[in-house]
């Protein structure tokens, strides 16, 4: 009977990639591309653009790989690069277009991103009513909740990884996500 070796950690793959092995980096791309694209697609509201930004995030990560500190998690480092790219893109877009903001029930300013059906990040969902409702509820979440929901459910980060990413106490992450889920459960009650 052959023993199955456990998959190499991200940090080990980074070491191997730093030795010049691009295929090791390719494996990291395979591991993270779906989650990275999902996260970015919700952040920028455009799946095609999210794929391009994901690609750029990986290339930037490769270029900066020698500066990666292995004491930290590769996942949070990579998502930080992607997040910064997404935010930079949104800032540039705001400079070019009229901002779409409105005030939610709690008096907070929330951003509204108009969905483009061809580039819709939720366009693959067969249940269109659910996709529409989910899109709306995510867009209407308070920004501080929305970001944590994206990191948790689209980036697939653990609570601890989110705490590292946001440099926020773990308890605060738990509390905010709990409150965000309460809003989500109410808004999506018809689909639960």
């Amino acid at each position, binding site marked *: 009977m052959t023993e199955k070796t456990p998959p190499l950690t991200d940090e080990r793959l980074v070491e191997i990639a730093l030795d010049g092995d691009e295929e090791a*980096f390719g494996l990291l791309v395979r591991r993270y*591309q779906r*989650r990275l694209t999902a996260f970015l697609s919700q952040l920028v509201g455009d799946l095609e653009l999210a794929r391009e930004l*994901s690609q750029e995030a990986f290339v930037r990560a490769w270029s900066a790989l020698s500066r990666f500190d292995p004491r930290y998690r590769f996942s949070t480092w990579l998502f930080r690069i992607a997040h910064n790219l997404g935010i930079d893109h949104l800032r540039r877009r705001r400079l070019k277009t009229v901002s779409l903001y409105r005030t939610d029930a709690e008096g907070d300013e929330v951003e509204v991103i108009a969905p483009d059906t061809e580039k819709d990040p939720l366009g693959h969902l067969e249940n269109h009513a659910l996709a529409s409702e*989910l899109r709306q509820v995510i867009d209407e979440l308070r920004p501080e909740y929305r970001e944590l929901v994206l990191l948790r*459910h689209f980036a697939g980060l653990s609570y601890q990884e989110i705490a590292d990413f946001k440099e926020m106490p773990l308890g605060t992450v738990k509390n905010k996500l*709990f409150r965000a*889920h309460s809003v989500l459960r109410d808004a999506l009650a018809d689909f*639960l």
Partner: protein
Amino acid sequence: MATDCQATQEMLTELGGEIERLDQVAQHHLEVCPGCREVAAAEFALGRIFSEAVPPADPTIEKKVLAHLGPARIRRRFVAFLPVAASLVVALLGAVLVGGVPGGGIVAFLPGWSAQGWMAFVTSASDWGVAVAAGARATAATLDPVMLAGAGLLGFLGLVAVAATALRWRRVSPWRNDG
């Protein structure tokens, strides 16, 4: 909301409604609390919705990313080649100082400064024993022992550096079976 409900529902949120992953205290609470059971079911359904909401993977992205690494790869290989080039220079410097090719020492022992002479050199160079002996005799005539030892050490270090770099390039990655 009772403290038990708050704690249980926070756990349910974190665990995506998977009640079997709750600790015993929370599971006992769930048995007697319909409100928390309702939250458990809702959280489980919410988890499924989010897992379906993640867009499908793009199978081409890895290829595209690796293609973009080209320029970076060339830069990286150039940088990796620098120690090899430096080592070769050091090795050559050592060989010249010792009186080796194409230093004056060995030339003095060639049959003549002519085409035939160079042909003879090429022939003799293929025989390392002859070349080394010629180099050693020329060196003994032109260099003092301290300088000779230093040059020999320099050449040796250069060859070690070349070998070390070559081994680094040959390293086989152990991850290829990893999924």
